[in-house]
């Protein structure tokens, strides 16, 4: 049996600063098996895959390849061993042909002076032929996302690999394309190639994989033969953890408004052509509401739609009982609804501008006087007040935001939201990339705001955070609200059940 093991990883550790991404994980891959790796976002799956592919180096632990310890220093070395990784994000050159993309690394090491495009296209055609009907002379840019994903897989197949890693490959594929991919996976496995298959979807794991390994919080939990366990066991293993008490208190009875006061936010039948449909929910006064769901389920899109940041939405929105008719995000800010973006550096703050200038960006009227000039003293006052309120650590207010730590940058972004005295704040991943101390502070700030009557809606991919911070959580799945949990029912199991298509999986497994 031992001879069968192509890759054996034991006691692997990896830290990024204070974050311990992997804490002694084990992983065993046999020749010719399809091995699923399951875990929540942040469980350490991608870190391990990047280590196997030589992109990252472990802090400690051993990797054995065919029984011999190896250190994989770079993706090129991983390639030499026979490891191919298909990333979740598509990393192709959009402006060159499919064939050139597939043979990018071959071309890179080729010693020939001229490109033989015809031969390249022919070879690409024979590899693609088994995958899908894709013209190898087409530009990648002109392909739909699902075909781009297949090109990525074809690219990995050309490397003559013995281990193929697929990181959520079906996220962008249609059902039919996914089925084709699974049959190819099975064929490759029969040829002796081992496949590591990363997915959230239980039905895929249980229909197509031989074994499953579960990680949680950077730790190895278990490895089981799929035939021996049920999908719900895997989900339990993924999330089975007691929520710790780092979080602030929940809503108190006195925080609730009387039944007659209208809810802060009342959304009815909100729909958008592409990304979500028929969304209805309410946010009560004093409550912190969570939005859970897998990445891409439509959580951010829904709140951006409410704020008119993007998308052409239809439906009715009332704020504190008043129906809103807003057309731009500027209107939304004036109405008192603001959105804290999930990508702080990309679109949350102005990195090279000063702290004070960042905080006043939402409404310059606050720091301007009647003739439209900026009153520097008022701008400083506003920034000082909010910086003190949020406990922002800074040198001078004229320092650029780039000089602050991630947590303090995020607080500047929150201060910007608070500058306009909002009635309602949507926070998208408010603690992503924030250290533990600042995280707890931000959670406390959210609770304080809710108590003072500001509506708080939190989107987070971290289930413990949602459960710890929120009074009620709505779960979004494929553009629809698939359920709501609160109080005792607010458990990771329940949320994961609602977020993934597990029910369908169960039904299918039972009928089979």
């Amino acid at each position, binding site marked *: 049996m031992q001879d069968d093991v192509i890759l054996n990883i034991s006691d692997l550790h990896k830290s990024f600063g204070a974050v311990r991404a992997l804490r002694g994980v084990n992983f065993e891959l046999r020749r010719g098996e399809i091995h699923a790796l399951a875990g929540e976002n942040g469980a350490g799956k991608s870190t391990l895959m990047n280590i196997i592919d030589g992109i990252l180096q472990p802090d400690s632990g051993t990797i054995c390849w065919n029984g011999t310890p190896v250190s994989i220093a770079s993706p090129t070395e991983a390639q030499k061993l026979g490891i191919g990784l298909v990333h979740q994000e598509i990393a192709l050159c959009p402006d060159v042909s499919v064939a050139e993309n597939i043979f990018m690394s071959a071309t890179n090491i080729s010693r020939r002076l001229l490109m033989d495009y015809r031969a390249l296209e022919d070879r690409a055609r024979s590899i693609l032929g088994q995958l899908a009907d894709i013209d190898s002379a087409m530009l990648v840019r002109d392909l739909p996302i699902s075909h781009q994903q297949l090109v990525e897989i074809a690219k990995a197949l050309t490397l003559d690999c013995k281990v193929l890693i697929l990181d959520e490959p079906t996220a962008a594929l249609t059902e039919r394309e996914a089925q084709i991919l699974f049959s190819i996976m099975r064929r490759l496995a029969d040829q002796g190639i081992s496949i590591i298959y990363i997915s959230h979807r239980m039905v895929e794991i249980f229909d197509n994989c031989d074994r499953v390994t579960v990680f949680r919080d950077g730790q190895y939990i278990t490895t089981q033969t799929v035939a021996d366990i049920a999908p719900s066991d895997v989900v339990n293993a993924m999330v089975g953890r007691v929520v710790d008490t780092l979080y602030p208190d929940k809503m108190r009875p006195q925080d609730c408004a009387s039944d007659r006061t209208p809810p802060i936010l009342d959304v009815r039948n909100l729909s958008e052509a592409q990304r979500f449909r028929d969304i209805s929910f309410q946010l009560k006064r004093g409550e912190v509401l969570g939005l859970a769901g897998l990445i891409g389920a439509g959580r951010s899109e829904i709140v951006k739609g409410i704020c008119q940041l993007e998308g052409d939405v239809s439906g009715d929105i009332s704020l504190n009982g008043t129906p809103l008719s807003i057309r*731009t995000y500027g209107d939304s800010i004036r109405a008192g609804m603001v959105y804290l973006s999930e990508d702080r550096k990309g679109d949350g703050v102005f990195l090279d*501008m000063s702290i004070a200038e960042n905080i006043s960006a939402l409404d310059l009227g606050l720091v301007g006087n009647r003739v439209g000039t900026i009153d520097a003293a008022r701008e400083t006052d506003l920034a000082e007040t909010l910086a003190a309120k949020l406990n922002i650590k800074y040198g001078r207010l004229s320092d650029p935001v780039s000089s602050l730590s991630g947590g303090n940058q995020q607080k500047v972004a929150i201060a910007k939201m608070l500058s306009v005295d909002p009635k309602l704040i949507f926070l998208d991943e408010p603690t992503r990339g924030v250290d533990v101390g600042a995280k707890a502070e931000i959670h406390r700030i959210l609770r304080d705001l809710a108590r003072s009557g500001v509506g708080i809606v939190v989107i987070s991919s971290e289930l413990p955070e949602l459960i710890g911070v929120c009074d009620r959580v709505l779960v979004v799945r494929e553009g629809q609200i698939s359920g709501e949990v609160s109080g005792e029912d607010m458990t990771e199991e329940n949320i994961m059940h609602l977020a993934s298509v597990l029910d369908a999986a169960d039904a299918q497994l039972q009928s089979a």
Partner: protein
Amino acid sequence: MEKSINLAPPATQGMGALKKLLRMRETGLILIILALCIGMSFASPYFLTWVNIRAMVMAFAVEGIVVVGMTILLISGGIDLSVGSVTALAMVIAGWLFLQGIDPWVASLISIAACTGIGAFMGFFVTRVGLHHFIVSLAVMVIARGACLLFTGGRPIGLFTLPAEFKFIGQGAIGPIPLVIIIFLIVVLAFDFMLRRTTAFRKVFYTGSNEKAAAYSGIRTKKVIFLTTTLCSALCGVAGIIYMARFGSAQPTFGLGMELNVIAAAVIGGASLNGGSGTIFGAILGAVLLSVVSSSLALLDVSVYWQDIIRGSILLAAVSIDHYLNKRRR
């Protein structure tokens, strides 16, 4: 070993002070300009005479108005290559209308309006069609130049009959100071103040610094970019009219290569091609520096052909120093 430890702190302190000084770009530029002027005053007795100083200021004053527009556009994240030909087109349109018997003041207003329209046209292609400033303004640069040649048949239009009141804009003086310089100073001071202090122009910085973050702060970034594009062309129109009054003619080939001078001045003065930073004061100092260098080279009898080489080298040096300092700061 110990020696180096002892020596290290004062050395780094000295470096820090120097770097700090260099980092304040306006100070650095003023120092360089002063040094050049002092050096030149020894090299040529003519350099620091009133006549030469006036000539130097006149040389960049009108172009300086275009520098103001370009700087604001660069801060918003855009760029405009068409400034030279749009300035020439302003002269040509106004001159042609004047020759058709239209009052020169009315002709000038129509011409400035036309240039503003050209800016709006570019702004439309950038913000609505979604093309890059570089390409749109490159196309308009060629189109506007072509229009100039079409209007004039490629020959300068002599405007000898321009009324004296009109020529006064370009040729007159209040006391010893030419009116051109006064107009220039008013434009510079007004826009410098507005850019530093008004809420409207603050939005230009937000947009150029991070367009998406600006949009996520409720700022209508497309409107901002549309307006800065339009403003730059409008100021080209103003500059064209002043040139016409000054020369008493409309020259279809005027302003060739002006875009390089103008962009160089703004960039030497601290404007970033990535948007988000720059000052009017700095950009004008950049223009002053380029003008002082040109004048110095002329007085030293350096071939005109060398001048372009030196100007280009100054630009490269200024931007390299800036890039280096920025990298160190990160």
